[in-house]
């Protein structure tokens, strides 16, 4: 293999793929990126962690075709230190040689025959969806997924079609986030469970992409395809719990507050909260305030008062502040509504004007 290429282009492609090339206990070649220069003037860079597979294409000038598997972190380190624009990359007896104006490095490679094939989903049902919509849906909910392996359904983001919107949901059984995205998708959009770890990668990869993404469905996997990138993810075979039934229909207390007020108060309270991140939310209907209290025997205590538009009865509940803080990034409107169900009942948080996002969080015991 021998090729000439632009250093910045290839560096950004390696950066994307290298995230997936991690050490693997039994298969060392998985710590490599796979450079495939068999098509003329095109280099395909592949990486996989056997859960997710990624291919990125870069335009190059092929001199001699070939393939090689090279340790990703070494290659990335080399590329970031080279300052020249043009590189020559070639293989020399199982090593990869990179030559620039003033540098020349040789990287030891691994047998490329061991590198797994990345499944190509072709001739299957596919849809086009705006990248912005997809990423916004994922970003709004993924953090609520459970990071334990016991229930794969809960370690996933659940996507399904409902009327004219695509609904993204995730829950770790303590809180639940649901985001509805108004977008055109066909009626037979299948219910899908994508592992949340893969969702993080999808967000990272397509966040800056502005065009439409082609989404291809298969029974156990799903692929995302744009001009120069192809990502295939495993899907979870299972059913998401029937979460609709736990969304409370009636509330005892409602408080509308400014989002920034709440974020700031939680920030302060966090300094004084204990190991369990416990904060106390108190709605005072008479004085029209939402009070946030926290106390730590070693540090001190704090009391914050936020003016709020309130209705219903007074209520006082403890929450894990992290759970409440998590959802702030997903609410676009500047004020938000807290709906309390009462003692032992969940709290629902949503934007005051934008109802596409709903967050439900359970209070702490005692």
């Amino acid at each position, binding site marked *: 293999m021998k090729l000439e290429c632009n250093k910045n282009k290839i560096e950004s492609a390696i950066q994307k793929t290298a995230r997936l090339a991690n050490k693997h206990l039994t298969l060392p070649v998985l710590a490599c990126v796979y450079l495939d220069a068999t098509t003329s003037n095109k280099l395909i860079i592949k990486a996989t962690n056997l859960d997710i597979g990624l291919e990125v294409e870069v335009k190059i000038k092929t001199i001699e075709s070939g393939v090689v598997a090279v340790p990703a972190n070494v290659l990335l380190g080399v590329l970031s230190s080279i300052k020249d624009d043009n590189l020559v990359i070639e293989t020399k007896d199982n090593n990869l040689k990179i030559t620039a104006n003033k540098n020349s490095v040789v990287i030891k490679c691994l047998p490329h025959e061991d590198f797994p094939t990345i499944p190509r989903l072709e001739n299957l049902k596919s849809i086009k969806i705006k990248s912005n919509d997809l990423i916004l849906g994922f970003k709004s909910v993924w953090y609520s997924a459970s990071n334990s392996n016991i229930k794969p359904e809960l370690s996933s983001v659940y996507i399904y079609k409902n009327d004219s919107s695509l609904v993204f949901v995730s829950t770790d059984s303590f809180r639940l986030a649901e985001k509805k995205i108004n977008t055109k998708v066909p009626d037979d959009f299948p219910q899908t469970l994508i592992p949340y770890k893969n969702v993080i990668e999808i967000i990272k990869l397509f966040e800056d992409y502005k065009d439409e993404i082609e989404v291809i469905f298969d029974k*156990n996997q799903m692929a995302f395809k744009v001009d120069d990138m192809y990502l295939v993810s495993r899907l979870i075979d*299972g059913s998401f719990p029937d979460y609709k039934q736990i969304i409370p229909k009636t509330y005892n207390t409602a408080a509308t507050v400014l989002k920034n007020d709440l974020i700031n108060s939680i920030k302060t309270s966090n300094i004084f909260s204990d190991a369990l991140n416990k904060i106390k939310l108190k709605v005072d209907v008479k004085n029209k305030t939402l009070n946030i209290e926290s106390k730590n025997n070693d540090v001190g205590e704090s009391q914050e008062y936020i003016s709020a538009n309130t209705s219903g009865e007074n209520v006082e509940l403890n929450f894990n502040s992290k759970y409440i803080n998590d959802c702030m990034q997903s609410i676009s409107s500047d004020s938000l509504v807290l709906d309390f169900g009462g003692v*032992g009942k969940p709290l629902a948080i949503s934007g005051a004007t934008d109802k596409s996002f709903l967050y439900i969080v*359970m209070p702490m*015991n005692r």
Partner: protein
Amino acid sequence: MDTKELWNNILPEIESSVSKANFATWFKDTKISGFEDGVVYLSVPNTFVQEWLLKKFHQLILKLLRQSSESIHRLEYVIKEESKQKNQYIPTKTCSPTRELPLSEHYINKDDNLNPRYTFESFVVGPFNELAHAAAQAVIKNLGVAYNPFFIYGNTGHGKTHLIQAIGNAVKAVDPSKKIFYLTSEKFQNDFVSSMLANNINQFKDKYRKYDMLIMDDIQFLSGKEKTQEELFHLFNTMKDSNKHIVFSSDKHPNFITGLEDRLKSRFAAGMVIDIPAPDHESRVAIIKSKCSSINLFLDDEIIDYLADSIKGNIRDLEGVINLIVCQTETKNKTLILNEVKDLVKNSIKQKKLLSYKEVVKIISDFYKISEEIIYEKTRKKEVIKPRQVIMYILREDFCISYPSIGEKLGGRDHTTVIHSCEKIKKDIQVDELLSKEIREIRSMIG
């Protein structure tokens, strides 16, 4: 063929012919999940493994398989996540300070409403339900053609819901593109009523007509709901005409569901009507064993036998007692002995209901829709004579009351009249299908 042993024999051979890294990465968590008509189904954890085995080791595996058995001529891969099944019954211990959302444990698929836990793998087939099971298999093989409609009836807790949901899940597994929908008759009715109120009855019709298979549970609750029945009748005709399958379940034979329109009854009878009676002793043993193994509970054969013996009929009661045993075992942290189980079970065994003769008379006269008092009167009207004779027969056969005392209780009749009635019913049952069915129905009501 023991597929587990077959695979265990082959694995070392593969191990010797591939590198250690390759073996550990690609052959971990593989197993033979099935063997049918010369095709071996190898279950693998994900698509990467599937692609890799197909590309690199397909020939090798097939060669080794053929060496051990000539009958194997093809190898196919199925993707199955093992970890999930292993973990299915690990109870989540909540040590978290935050309360949990009350998410239900029953994960139900939104599209088809089926509970994925109800499969044929977990369905115990015994002499009592083998006919129903065989018919269900025929339905799956010839969807829309064989036994349409398929009507299952039997008392509560005999496994009707499990069977009909398993049909749905099996059809879905064979062909995922088939649209299946499971619902209870109550849901159907609610849907119908709300669509009438919202004035979009056509939407309702379209919704149900697009399914390839409709599974309706507990049809007896439609009794007396005339409008809903009419809608079901039309839906039924459309689906049947377009060769779409319909599966029903009920607690009675359709002919005995009171308040069900005759045209529906006759249509139900046109397909396959199968009874699931109470499980026999051996089947109960098998059910207990399969339940225990699915939750990793070890029980002595003696205890299993005792449970099967003392809890008759309802499978749900069996499950309840097993759950009780699990709970006790966990708290006491040791396996229970027979006497402890007996103590536990004592409370959950249903006492056989003791009915007074008056209650029997009431049940039977209600069954024949005549008033209770008329039984005791001297009238010899035809519509009264038969129920009266049935009452005498039941009192004699099931409650072992003496002939004279039966006569006395039913309005002072002579004991020879009673003897004659009992003999007549006994004889008629042999020839009269309808009568024998009625008697069975009545007996199930008396319990």
